[in-house]
Each structure stands twice: as C-alpha cells, then as structure tokens.
C-alpha cells in the first residue's frame, strides 16, 4: 500500500513532537488507544485561561498514518478556541492526509485525543478552582 505524500511528509518531519511538563496547570494531556491495539497517542495542549490553544505537542506509538494524524492535529488545533477544537471531526484529518479506509481509525483516535486533552484541562481547571475556593473558605 502506498502512503500519500502528506502522510510521508508528516511521518518524516513530524511537527511538534515532544512533551510539556504534566504538572503545568495550563496543560491538558490526552492519552488514547492501547499498546495491544498497535496505537497509542499522547496529545498535550497548552491552553490559555480564556480557552485558546496556544501550543501543542504529541508522541505516538503507531503506524505511519497514526503518526501523521497526530502530527497534523497539533498544527490544526493551534490558535483555535476550545469549542472550535472540540468541533474538529476525524473526516477533516482523513481528507487532509488522504487516508485509505483501513486507516480511518487513526483519524478517529486523533479526534479522541483532542477531546481527551481538552477534557483533562477542564477537569484540572475545575479542581484548581474548587481547591482555591476551599482554601479561601478555610
């Protein structure tokens, strides 16, 4: 099976590979997939207090299409507001990277990773807020 040029490009020159410190309060981390399924994506989003994605990092264990999907997603989400990022559908990834049908699950995983990372950030923000208010009460 031949890969599309865009998949090859992202695989060969992946954008935004790496990690943010996990304890940074502005970072949301999403880890989706499972090793025994052959795909694990870790997506980290640095989100401003007013809900704009300022930066993104990824690490992926998976085939070339999985790596390309996550690499592309880091570019796609940067500068987006949370509600815009939440609205990203896997079909946009399929279209951009010309993924064949057997690789659609890679794009689904990348969409899930965005939602998981944002969910993590929201959860942490809520906890910080509760923590702060409890501290104030005390």
């Amino acid at each position, binding site marked *: 099976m031949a890969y599309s040029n865009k998949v090859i490009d992202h695989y060969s020159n*992946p954008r935004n590979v790496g*990690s943010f410190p996990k304890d940074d309060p502005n970072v949301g981390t999403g*880890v989706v997939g499972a*090793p025994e399924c*052959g795909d*694990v994506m*870790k997506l980290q989003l640095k989100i401003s207090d007013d809900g704009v994605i300022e930066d993104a990092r990824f690490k992926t*264990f*998976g*085939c070339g299409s999985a790596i390309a999907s996550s690499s592309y997603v880091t570019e796609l989400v940067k500068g987006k507001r949370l509600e815009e990022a939440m609205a990203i559908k896997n079909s946009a990834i399929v279209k951009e990277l010309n993924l064949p049908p057997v690789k659609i699950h890679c794009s689904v995983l990348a969409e899930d990773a965005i939602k998981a990372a944002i969910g993590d950030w929201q959860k942490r923000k809520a906890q910080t807020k509760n923590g702060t208010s409890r501290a104030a009460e005390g």
Partner: protein
Amino acid sequence: MVKLPIYMDNHATTPMDRRVVDAMMPYFCEKFGNAASRNHSFGWEAEEGVDKGRNQVAALINAKAKEIIFTSGATESDNLAIKGVVEFYKDKGNHVITCVTEHKAVLDSCKALERAGKASVTYLRVDKYGVLDPDEVRKAITDKTVLITVMYANNEIGTIHPIAEIGKIAKEKGIIFHCDATQGVGKVPVDVEACGIDLMSLSAHKIYGPKGVGALYVRAKAPRVRLTPIIDGGGHERGMRSGTLNVPGIVGLGAACEIASKEMAEETARVSDLRNKLQAGIFERLDEVYVNGHPTQRLPGNLNVSFAYVEGESLLMGISDIAVSSGSACTSATLEPSYVIRALGTEEELAHSSIRFGLGRFNTEEEVDYVADRVVKEVKRLREMSPLYEMAKEGIDLKSVEWRRD
C-alpha cells in the same frame, strides 16, 4: 556504496538464480512440447526435461523420482495433501492433527474440511520459541486420526520443528505424516526417509527458482500413500494432479534443487554468518529488542525481532529502501498482529513491533551493515516519538496503565 533498494525478504520469495533462468530458456520457444505427447520428438524432449527435473527434486530430499508430483506451488501441494488424504481415507477416520503456527495454506485447508463436515481438526499449541512438542502430537492421536500435518520450518520466525521425532510417532501409530517444507527445503538438509515423512510440500520460488511451480512428495512404499485428486482431467502425475505439465517451471525447479544440493553447506554457513552479524549489529546498539523464535533451532537466514515501543509498520515506513516484512497487521481490516508471534505468548504490543528479516543467497555483508545502521537509527527516532518509551523510561509499568480504548 550499497545498491538500493535492498531485498531482505527471502521468506516471501527469492530472486531467481541466473543459472536457473538459463536452464529454463530452451523450454519456452524451442523445446516447447507437451510432455504428454508420446508420438513425436517435441513431446519426448519436453518429457526429458521433466524427468531430469523430477530426479533433481528427488535427489535433494532423498526421495525416488516417481514419488514427486508436480503442482503449481506449495499452496496447491498443501491443499492436495490434506484434502486428498482426508477424502481418500474417509472410511478409516476423519481426525487431523496440525499446529497453530502453520501456514494459511494448511490452516485454511483444515478449516475448509471442518466446515464441510469432513474432518475434525486438533490445532496444537507451541512453546515460547514456536516449537511443537512431539509428546503433544502423541497425546492428540485418536483411533480416528488419519493425518498429522506439521511444517518443517516456520515462515515467520524460522523455528525448525522436531520433524524426525514427529515422523517416528506417526510411523509407530500408522498415521500419514504430511510436512509443509516450503521454507526448509534447499536451506537445511531435508530427508524424507530420515524424518519419516509421507507427504511433503515444496516450492520453487523460495529456492531461487520460478514462481508458479512446486511439488508434492508422495511416498510410494511403506506405506504407499494414496490421495483423491483435487484437480481432475487427463490423469497426469499418476492420476494425482491433472493438467499439462509446466515444463519450463519444472526444469527450473529441478535446476534450483540441484544448485541447492551442491551449495547448501557453504551457503548455510555464509547466510547464517550474515544473519548473526545483522543480529549483533542491532542488539549491540539497542536495548529492549527481542528475538522471536528459537535462538538456535531456526533457519539460517531468518531473524525475527520485536523492537519494544515501536510499531512495526511505522518502522517499515522509515526504512523504505529496505524490503523486509512486519508482523504488525495495521493494514489488515482486523488490526490483529501476526498469529504466529502471538502463539509464542508474546505480549500483543511486542507482536505489533515485530520485523522479519529474511536473508538469502544474494545478500552481502555491506547490505547487512547498511540495514543494521538504518534500523538502529530509525528505531531510535521512533522511540523518541513514542509515548510508551517515554512512560517506560519514567518507570511506569505499562501493564498497570488503564488504556482508553474506543
């Protein structure tokens, strides 16, 4: 400078040896006769070529010429052996014993018989090296067992089964023993007498011969093995396989067998040295790499390795100027990794991380050095990109993680 791309997938197929091509050439345009034409010289010279080929194949495996039935390849040979025996001996029994790591040509033949209600099949498990325990075969035998079918050497991990011991058990119990020796023939000494083999499949294109031709060895004496044909027609090949003989292919198969006979000792030593050099070149420079298969009891050209934390297909993509194959099945609809690697009890993630290197007659030391360098470099790059590698380095036990599946 090494010439790219490099072919290191010799379990899938082999390039043809020029000497084999030369032997075949006259049989296309000049000696084109039908080997079954008995009344003119065109038929006679074609038959001569076939006879020579039959003798050459027989000599390689210590058989008699008349015990060689030519087929279109090992898949047909496996089908004929398994379906042919079960059909012919149906009054005697209907039980077949095989092994979970067999080639699909064997497994799917067995499954077809089960579906048709013609056989019940026992699929024996293997140990962590992929070896079938002969005692397991003995224990699985019932009074209905008509066939034991076990491969000589595995096509993915190269593990060589204790075939002579299994053959001995089959003889003791009077059960027909079929061996798919597609990967073993021409690579290691295979002797149907010493191993007690009654039926044996082999293929030309795995031993530097042409595609589309193979053979089934069918024992003629002690016992005389009978088969119901799966292809009916003019009654060629002692009635077991009808169809005009593929004369150039048979000549090529014969020539390939003769070269293998003459050069096997030297070639085995050279190819296993190359394999060992490749293995050392990878293992000395990377941590957490594992050999799949038996450490010593394996084919000389086989090296199947799992690179922890790196998915096999992504590694293949990174070394795209090297032809090897992956046990990862990310391209298949099921997303299941290799059933052979999984049968070893290997963790699924390592099964996804496996690569099969298949070295052969035409590989060189320069190629091995290049491949080792490229693989090491690419594995390091992909590990830097792997969340699993990062977690493992942080001391997180990956088995304790609750993964989010779809």
